């Protein structure tokens, strides 16, 4: 019953918000973007002031009445101060920290006070996310990373950023809800698979993908070459006087693999993405260079955090419109 009434109301409210405060990556908290209402304590404070007014009348006590008026006036002044604590702040969407679907990601919000007064004790959160508190001093720009749960793969719109402040007196809360046009990115869930959906290997170097699974295996000893990392040196043999040798592993840096969407026929798309994700992580861990082929997209082979990031981003955005 209640829900039946509430749902259209909420929709109306959202539509109204969207008209009043359209999405933008940079917004200044101006008068039309700030709402202000008393908190529970503010209502309690007003109640006490009202009681004192009645008391003042009944005891014909002007001073009690004056105190009641002073409280009322203080409350009204507090409206201005609470408003000021939020007003003028420049809110910008910052960077994003993707996560795997089902886990958490984080979005960066930058708060810039380019005016001459501090903005203290601001509470920020995405709908459903935890609250972060931050204070911004004059001329300062603060970066806040706000975590949010990632429910599904792809671009995740976090909803409206909720900024609230009760400073200075806590009797009023000023808040704003901004659409920061700042989507989060959810990589696919990693799903392990036995079979590596990789094609080819490198023709020049002749590395077979079947060798991959054992690429960390110990292959033998070879004579030490300058530049071999000390952990690869066979110190035991050296101590026994057999000379300086390096342990020889299947060399991971010799070729590259193409992780390929097309290698998993008959598997549904999300599972394919999940498996590819798992393999990207695996290959990265094993220092194996890899490329990625998706329908309509290709990432040239490479290695390193940058490569992993690009591969995962590509997987996350598969099937989504390019922003």
């Amino acid at each position, binding site marked *: 019953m209640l829900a039946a009434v509430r749902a259209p109301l909420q929709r109306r409210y959202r539509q109204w918000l969207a008209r009043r405060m359209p999405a933008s990556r940079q917004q200044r908290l101006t008068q039309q973007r700030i709402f202000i209402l008393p908190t529970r304590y503010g209502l*309690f*404070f007003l109640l006490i002031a009202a009681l004192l007014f009645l008391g003042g009348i009944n005891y*014909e*006590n002007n*001073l009690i009445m004056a105190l009641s008026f002073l409280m009322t006036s203080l409350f009204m*002044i507090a409206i*201005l101060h609470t408003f000021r604590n939020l*007003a003028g702040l420049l809110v910008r969407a910052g960077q994003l920290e993707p996560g795997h679907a089902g886990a958490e990601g984080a979005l960066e919000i930058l708060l810039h006070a380019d*005016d*001459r007064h501090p903005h203290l004790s601001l509470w920020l959160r995405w709908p459903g996310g935890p609250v972060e508190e931050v204070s911004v001093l004059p001329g300062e720009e603060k970066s806040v990373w706000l975590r949010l749960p990632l429910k599904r793969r792809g671009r995740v719109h976090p909803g409206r950023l909720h900024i609230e402040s009760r400073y200075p007196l806590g009797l009023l809360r000023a808040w704003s809800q901004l659409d920061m046009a700042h989507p989060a990115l959810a990589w696919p869930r990693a799903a392990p698979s036995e079979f590596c959906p990789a094609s080819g290997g490198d023709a020049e170097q002749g590395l077979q993908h079947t060798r991959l699974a054992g690429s960390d295996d110990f292959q033998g000893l070879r004579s030490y070459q300058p530049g071999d990392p000390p952990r690869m040196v066979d110190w035991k043999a050296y101590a026994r006087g057999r000379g300086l040798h390096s342990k020889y592993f299947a060399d991971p840096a010799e070729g590259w693999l193409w992780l390929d969407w097309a290698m998993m026929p008959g598997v549904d798309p999300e599972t394919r993405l999940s498996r590819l994700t798992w393999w990207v992580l695996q290959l990265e861990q094993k220092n194996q260079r890899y490329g990625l082929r998706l329908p309509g997209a290709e990432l040239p082979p490479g290695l390193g955090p940058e490569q992993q990031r690009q591969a995962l981003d590509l997987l996350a955005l598969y099937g989504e419109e390019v922003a």
Partner: protein
Amino acid sequence: MARVYQVPHHAFGWLVAGTFMAALPHLIHGPLWLRILLPATVLGRILIQRGRLPMPGRVLRVILLGGVLLGTLYTHGTVLGPDAGTCLLVAAFALKLLEMVRLRDAYVLLVLGYFVLATTFLFYQGPIASLYVLLSMLCLTAALPGINHPEAGARAWRHFRLALVMLLQAVPLMLLLFVLVPRISPLWSLEFSQERSRTGMSDSMAPGEVSHLSQSRELAFRVEFEGAVPPPAARYWRGLTYAWFDGRRWSQARPQEISQADYVWFPASPQPRPDWAATLVAARDEAAARGPVYRYRVVQEPSRRNWLYALAVPFADDTRLGLVRDLRLVSREELNQRRDYRVTSYPALRSSMPMSPADEAISLQLPEGFNPRAREMARRWYREAGSAEAYANRLLRWFREESFYYTLEPPLLGEHTVDEFLFGSRRGFCEHYASAFAFMMRAAGVPARIVAGYQGGELNPVGNHLRVHQYHAHAWTEIWLPGSGWVEVDPTAAVAPSRIEMGPEAALQDDPLADFQGIMRDLPWLQQLSNRFDYVQFIWQKWVLDYDESSQLSLLQRWLGDVSPARIGMALAAGAAVLLMPVALWVLLRRRGPGRTPMQREYRAMLKQLRGRGLVLSDDLPPRRLVREAGGQWPAARPVLKKWGRAFEESVYGGQAGTSLRALRRYRRQLRWLRGARGGQHVSPG
């Protein structure tokens, strides 16, 4: 056990100071257990905050709360009513300090603190008390930003400064509300408990039974004169009269033959005006022509009595006050609050008051069997004197010439109080002399009565007003002389004239404050300070405490003309807008970045001047390039520009303080006299 809420350390001081200060005034008059409870809870909270004590458990809290309830019941006999209620509130408030577990509790404590603070005004209303309350409120308010700013780096004094700024901004608005919000009459009647001590006069006196007259410095009332101030010997503030004597005790009495309606006249009441009142009213103008008229305003401290004090034959302008047949003022209800009233007194009107048989009978009444010696002497002396006037003078002369002494600690008297006093002890204070004199008059057949009230008063030159203290309390007599009416006779004046002329301080050797007063005499500036403070108190009383429905009405009529709810509403809205606007502008105007330095202004001025000459120059030009660009467009100016540029650069960037702004301005002025770049032409759009 729940985790203890840690008040941020920078807020804790304000929180404790605010709550302690809010409760402190109640400790002064509160019961002993409350006096112990509050410091104990404050100490407890400090220890809890430091982690030295655990939070009190639920059982302990319930026990404490129960104890507080019992304590209140024990002290006040009830938990209702303002006294008990305040006591309970303060105690519960103190306990709340202990059980502050969450942020919410801190809020509740602080907001309750405002309430507790307000109850201070039930007991103290002076300007000092109000300042104290304001200061406590500042501390409470300073705690609020503290608990709202959980960061460790915050500074305690910043909270205080913020609270101060906000309160200062709130004060004008408060004053507006104070003046404009309509005063309504009490919604329901609330009375203070009657146990509270009554001060001042009582409604009877028994001179023989008092061996010690305690005299306090407490203020009885203040009087502000409009025009002439009566000389000290004429300052007899009449409160009530004692007409009935039972041999030991003089009491107030209304002759049985006279009805209540005939006894008191309330000018505003619909009942018919008594004849005597009509006579007095009719004779007012004539009396004014014969003698002085005093117009004044009395600010009466709460006495919890219904009689008021005024010079003889007073007419008040207050509808709640009435004139009594024995020429004094009464109020319909007891004075539990300070009250001020305007009075016009006509001393010459005494003679116009008619004497009725019933009045005469009660003014001659004497119990049989008491004081035979005095009776005998009275009859004898009256015979010898021949007239009431001569007899009274002889009696006064006798008081003066025989060895009668004025003392505040007379011996106790036995059954025949007047005989024993006149022919035995001969030591006493005003009551003894008044009693003996009135007895002697009545015994000789002259109508007489005792008047109780205050005599004298200290003139405060700062505000042209009198302060009348409890130690000015006095008793004297009035005798009725045909043709003159009731005449004031003060037998004490015959014994100790200085008591009347100089005030009672001479007799106050025992008062610990007497020394202090002596010091005040010696230090004129201290006396002056005291006078000033008294004046402040008086003004406070007049403008703040006594600002009521009627004064509001007259004030608003003067300002707004017609007083209607709509007008008051409009005035409130307009006033609030006018008062809030500067604050709003101050608070809300965004001031971006730091202001310009003189050097930066100089640079801007140069840019503007060059552009005014038609030069096209962009904003991002550093000084050297500005000089080059401008020099290119205006070759004639190049040498001066170069000098200006070098001076500017050295001063602003080179860290050479030597280059003065004046030199820069001089170069710029030189440019003004140069001919324009391209004849002043510049590209203009369109």
